[in-house]
């Protein structure tokens, strides 16, 4: 694995301003991410886990309604405060995103091939054969019949296939970093396993870094190298996955792990976050 740091985030903060009300969505977020590495950001809804990754490429409302502070350097280039032209060269091309609901991220009136092709035409104008690039991207995500899927419209595909198509679109331009924001939350366990296995293989093949955002420690254990636990916009704990999950220091981390029901475990009641926080 390359030890070169791809993304260096220091003291990143996101503040929303609405009228006279100020909401700090994230503050003091710092981490390093190397090529080929997977960092999982774990937290509940509203913990600020998504907002810091959206801030990387300016996918938040413009100031004054939203202010991003601190520093995020991708390959040494500062992203915070970069102009729109610079950001749009990074977005999609170097940092790509996949989201929770593939059905709502795809455009219902264009076929899958056109939508992947759009990303290629925009970010890699030097590519002569767009169609070949599209079919290659679909084959990369282990779709058996790329030509048929390229002709399909989103509603003709299952949730798992839609998410594969989204991943193909994200990877068509060979990004250095893939931000996967709850990529399997809306999917069945069997499809979840297929998608996570696929992401693990692609990361190894392409030496791509992945920022995995999730509320479920279950998917983190087998997949992430490092874990960052967020609560109310702050990082409460971070470290290697085995260490954080094996001997969590923070009561909040322990609570998030303890509240997941496990197979074969007979308990009268499920442990809640409140139980764990009260105990400490």
């Amino acid at each position, binding site marked *: 694995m390359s030890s070169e740091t791809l993304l260096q985030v220091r003291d990143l903060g996101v503040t929303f301003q609405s009228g006279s009300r100020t909401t700090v969505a994230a503050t003091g977020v710092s981490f390093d991410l190397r090529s080929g590495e997977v960092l999982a950001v774990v937290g509940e809804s509203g913990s600020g886990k998504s907002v810091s990754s959206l801030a990387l490429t300016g996918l938040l409302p413009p100031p004054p309604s939203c202010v991003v502070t601190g520093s995020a350097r991708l390959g040494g280039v500062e992203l915070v405060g970069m102009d729109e032209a610079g950001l749009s060269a990074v977005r999609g091309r170097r940092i790509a995103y996949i989201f929770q609901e593939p059905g709502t991220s795809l455009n219902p009136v264009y076929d899958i091939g056109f939508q992947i092709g759009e990303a290629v035409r925009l970010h890699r104008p030097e590519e002569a054969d767009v169609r070949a690039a599209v079919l290659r991207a679909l084959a990369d995500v282990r779709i058996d019949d790329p030509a048929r899927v390229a002709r399909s419209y989103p509603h003709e595909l299952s949730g798992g296939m839609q998410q594969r198509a989204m991943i193909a679109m994200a990877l068509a331009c060979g990004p250095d970093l893939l931000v996967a924001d709850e990529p399997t939350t809306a999917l069945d366990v069997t499809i979840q396993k297929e998608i996570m296995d696929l992401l693990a293989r692609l990361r190894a093949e392409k030496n791509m870094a992945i920022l995995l955002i999730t509320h479920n420690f279950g998917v983190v254990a087998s997949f992430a190298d490092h874990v960052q636990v967020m609560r109310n916009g702050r990082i409460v704990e971070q470290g290697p996955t085995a260490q954080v999950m094996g001997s969590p220091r923070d009561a909040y981390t322990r609570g998030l792990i303890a509240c997941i*029901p496990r197979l074969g475990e007979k308990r009268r009641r499920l442990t*809640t976050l409140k139980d764990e926080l009260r105990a400490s």
Partner: protein
Amino acid sequence: MTQPAATLLEVRDLAVHYPVRAPWFFMPAPQPKKAVDGVSFSVLRGQTVGIVGESGSGKSTTGKAVIRLAPVTRGAILYGGVDLIGLSPADFHPYRKRIQMIFQDPYNSLNPRTDVLGIVSEPLEIHFPGMSSAEKEARCEELLLAVQLSADDLRKHPHEFSGGQRQRIGIARALAVQPELIICDEPVSALDVSVQAEVVNLLQDLQDKLGLTYLFIGHDLAVIEHVSDHVLVMNAGKIVEQGPPDAILGNPKEEYTRRLLAAVPRF
């Protein structure tokens, strides 16, 4: 339990087939889509039967068929010995009070323009038309306290609540008419794991206190194992296997169940 529990619901050879239209009028109509095809099981009073399966397995359709939200092609649904299938809408009406449902998506199953009082008291208006407004409000307050919300929440609207709180409002609405059976259609699938644990505990506390019977539909095997007294594994409209949760999920006989179990992340 001191005496053997009585059967509350018995489903026999249930089938829900949706007709598929031919693409052109001169073509023969294709085979109907068999969403549920020959499903039989019983639910004992005061117990929880869990149905687990992937999307498209027919698990939700089975639950919906019990309260006529899906058209039944064939079979019998015996509720306390009475077959619900043949009943006229007027004769079925009292069963709508005895059987309630809570839904997966707490964001889409509550009317955004009505306050909590309006949402929770709507079933009271239908099933207890004689109740005065003061009585209804008192009953709604009691229900909110039962689901661990506060009486102050009565005048708020759904957008002021988090996902977990909205699911509690959905549960309060289902409890309003004092049902016997609640069909829980993926009640915790859309929630954070931390909130999921709270809602699951709440449903179990309410069951103990009120003697409720649940038909609990889900895709998370660990949740289903935790809540159920009896588990059905469904695939492609049929029951693959059924039995007590430790036998089915601890020592599955069918290849399909093993495959489902293998996909669950372990840590």
